[in-house]
């Protein structure tokens, strides 16, 4: 197997297997491994993964058990919108100091929970563990249990010590916390022999679905909710955009789970299928083709001619509305070459498709935490010669964008200054975006953003 011949001799040896070129080699790019030390990975940690998934739950108290930095750097980290409580936009911390590290932080955690319960009377508290909590061995489970019983509320520990894997492990920790939350009260779970088992009596509502992996960034979940409402399908609960304690508790009642962000939510969907017998399908509302297909897929699932007819009507109407706008952007963007470096594989895949729709060639595509099957799809969608890379660093991004003549990079906050310094256009596809990229309206917004950066007059001067 010949890996990509890297022109720069300074490239890190251990990184070579994480980089490949479509068509040049058979072997797939290596992924899902720990970052190479000193490689300047763009990845975050386990805690970050858990925090971003759970944070949009609006009426929960999100308490970080650890030193102050972890809470400080993740305060209101997502542009998730709420229709109810604003509690999730606060960042609570036990603010561990040296003394707590030496003598253990359990006592302080308990006191902090006392203070929070007294002040805010919450129904739900998530307690996130951070690196040092994992090391000093505070028994989060025990403290949470004791305090939950004391106040008769739910206090759920999230096992998210930063070093126990990467962001994906954090997604899983978040899903485990969610599974605990949606489980019916313990007494209902007890069987005759006293063991917990599957709850028998969950009343299913027909034509009601859970929407997994949408965090309601810039109203994205609401846009999709409206589409589905129009065709006669009700969204039961969104995981986790604009969700709350009460709505999440009803999750087992849905008759279908649809998954947008596969990286964060596939595990939860599989578990819910196992426990609550809810089937799941992968959908995507990013880009026109995916949006159309996803609406049809959902409509077909319910096997109801009326829903299917309404779906076609909605698609036809929306397409008509945006067609001429998109054509205009397409024309302007002819000949543009794009590079993609985003967090998850799902996002990379949908971006590949969206660029195809706009007639933009993708010359480099990579992710921080993409999975094997996602890289498979990425490889299928990519054109010959496209560089595919996992857990890339600034040096590699710079090298391949330059070599491949990219005009544009899609990425997050850390990648933006690099693109600009290289004189490239940039699209923010991050947690904190202020305009929706989902659905038909999102497809137009995306095209508009690509146009506004690629065709900016500023590039004439550099």
């Amino acid at each position, binding site marked *: 197997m010949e890996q990509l011949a890297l022109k720069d001799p300074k490239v890190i040896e251990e990184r070579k297997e994480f980089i490949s070129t479509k068509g040049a080699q058979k072997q797939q790019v290596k992924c899902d491994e720990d970052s190479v030390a000193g490689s300047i990975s763009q990845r975050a940690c386990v805690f970050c993964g858990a925090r971003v998934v759970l944070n949009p739950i609006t009426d929960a108290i999100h308490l970080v058990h650890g030193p102050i930095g972890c*809470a400080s750097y993740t305060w209101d980290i997502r542009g998730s919108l709420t229709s109810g409580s604003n509690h999730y936009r606060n960042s609570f*911390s036990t603010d561990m100091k040296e003394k707590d590290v030496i003598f253990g932080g359990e006592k302080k955690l308990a006191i902090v929970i006392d*203070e929070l319960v007294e002040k805010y009377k919450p129904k739900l508290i998530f307690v996130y563990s951070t690196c040092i909590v994992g090391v000093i061995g505070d028994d989060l489970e025990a403290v949470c249990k004791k305090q939950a019983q004391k106040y008769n509320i739910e206090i759920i520990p999230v096992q998210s010590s930063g070093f126990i894997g990467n962001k994906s492990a954090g997604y899983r920790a978040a899903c485990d916390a969610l599974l605990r939350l949606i489980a019916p009260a313990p007494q209902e779970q007890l069987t005759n022999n006293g063991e917990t088992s599957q709850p028998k009596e969950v009343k299913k509502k027909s034509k009601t679905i859970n929407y997994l992996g949408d965090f309601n960034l810039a109203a994205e979940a609401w846009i999709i909710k409206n589409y589905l409402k129009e065709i006669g399908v009700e969204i039961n609960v969104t995981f986790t955009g604009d969700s709350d304690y009460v709505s999440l508790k009803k999750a087992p009642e849905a008759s279908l789970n649809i998954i947008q962000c596969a990286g964060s939510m596939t595990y939860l969907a599989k578990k819910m299928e196992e426990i609550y017998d809810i089937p799941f399908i992968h959908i995507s509302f990013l880009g026109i083709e995916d949006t159309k297909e996803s609406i049809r897929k959902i409509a077909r699932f319910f096997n109801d001619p009326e829903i299917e007819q309404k779906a076609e009507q909605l698609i036809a109407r929306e397409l008509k509305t945006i067609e001429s706008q998109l054509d205009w952007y397409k024309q302007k963007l002819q000949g543009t070459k794009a590079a993609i470096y985003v967090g998850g594989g799902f996002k990379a895949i949908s971006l590949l498709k969206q660029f195809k729709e706009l007639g933009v060639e993708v010359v480099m595509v990579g992710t921080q935490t993409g999975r094997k099957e996602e890289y498979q799809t990425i490889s299928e969608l990519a054109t010959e010669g496209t560089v595919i890379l996992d857990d890339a660093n600034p040096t590699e991004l710079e090298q391949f964008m330059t070599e491949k003549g990219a005009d544009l990079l899609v990425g997050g906050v850390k990648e933006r200054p690099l693109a600009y310094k290289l004189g490239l256009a940039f699209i923010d596809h991050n947690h904190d975006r202020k305009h929706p990229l989902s659905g038909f309206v999102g497809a137009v917004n995306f095209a508009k953003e690509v146009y506004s950066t690629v065709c900016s007059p500023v590039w004439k001067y550099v």
Partner: protein
Amino acid sequence: MKKTVTQHHKNVNENPCNMCMPMGGILPFKGIEGSMVIMHGSQGCSTYMRRHMAEHYNEPIDVGSSSLNEKGTVYGGEKNLKTGLQNIIKVYQPKLIGVLTTCLAETIGEDVERITADFKKEHSDLSAKIVPCATPGYGGTQFEGYFLTLKQILKHLTKPSESHDKINIIVPNISPADIREIKRILQVMEIAHTIFPDYSDTLDRPYERPYKKIPDGGTTIADIVKMSGAKATIQFAAMVDDELSPGLFLKEKYGIELHNIPIPTGLESTDIFLHTLSSISGKEIPQTIQQERGRLLDCMIDSHKYNAEGNAVIYGEPEQVYAITKACLENGIIPKVVATGSKTTKLKAALQPMIEQLDMGIEIVQETDFSVIRSLSVKHHVNLAIGHSDGRYLTEQEGIPLVRHGFPIHDRVGGQRLLSVGYTGTTMLLDRLTNTLLENKYNQYRTKMYKEYYEKNFLIGS
């Protein structure tokens, strides 16, 4: 109002006003030529800090991580750190590498002094210097981390040197534009100097091709080595504890005269700076600078009545908070709430005499968070907030307009270009403050007067 939790003595930190020690440690290294940083800990720390800095400075911030995983945490992270150092040297070829520890590395007891010394022995051909710094995240805020790192760099790099004519200028976390202004003043006065650290070019770099992984600029290592032979040190760190003071280290070890003065923001503090320069160098304050002083005075007179209506909350790092509070006081703005997340004994002591003269019920709080800052601001009818971006919720939730100052500024562009030092910088800052008060007043006075004098008197019962 029912008082629930005693504000000043609570255990929970609700919405942090500060960040952690290693964050402060990155900045000094970014102000030294050819320098790179690696953080010994899990991957998330470097990523979060890079993200914060990239947003503030709008510059690529390459910081390595030893990417400690579970194995490294259990069996020791020495191998990870050494691999990380090797990879950074290979790709970046730095002249200096800063090794900062995190909570995790400190908690598992990593001895970075020993590990880096071993690394140097193992690589006899190593040309890069390595400076290890113990910066546990729970050991203090970014403020302490910054100064501790400066001192550590001096400890490792300075050597006894022949006396020379340069003055050491040790700067706290001020903007690159501020550093440039200080340099300009020194140039106008024709005073030889070493600015330490100098990130004015590295974190506010001009657009240029080709891209450089490590930007030009920064204090040269040769200059740092020779700070031991300087004529004197001027350090803008009036609020820093003696044990963290880099200037005091130079004084005690090499007998360099130390002038520890406030950041030259505001008329009085800038006077102190210029008089200090003048007395050390024996040079007169030039005409151009005296004119700048005259313009500042003119600006102060132009705005004094508007500023008399200002009731401010000032928060952030102690050094900045002190400088801004003084500037407010000399312009008739009442600093009703003065707050910092750091622990400092000097702030209250230094402000007390000035505030007692005012006799206006001013609160100075340390080791605090935004829940306290917010409630105190409401209690004191504050109409102006001055501090970093995390105070934006004071505007969103309480309608208090915010003048962004300090670090981090991540919801506006140009944090790196904000100028607030010297007579010119103070003039610009004062205009920002006054205009914010004016904008707020003009926006509100029609409604306010209508409610006060019309609605109450003429609409009752109608």
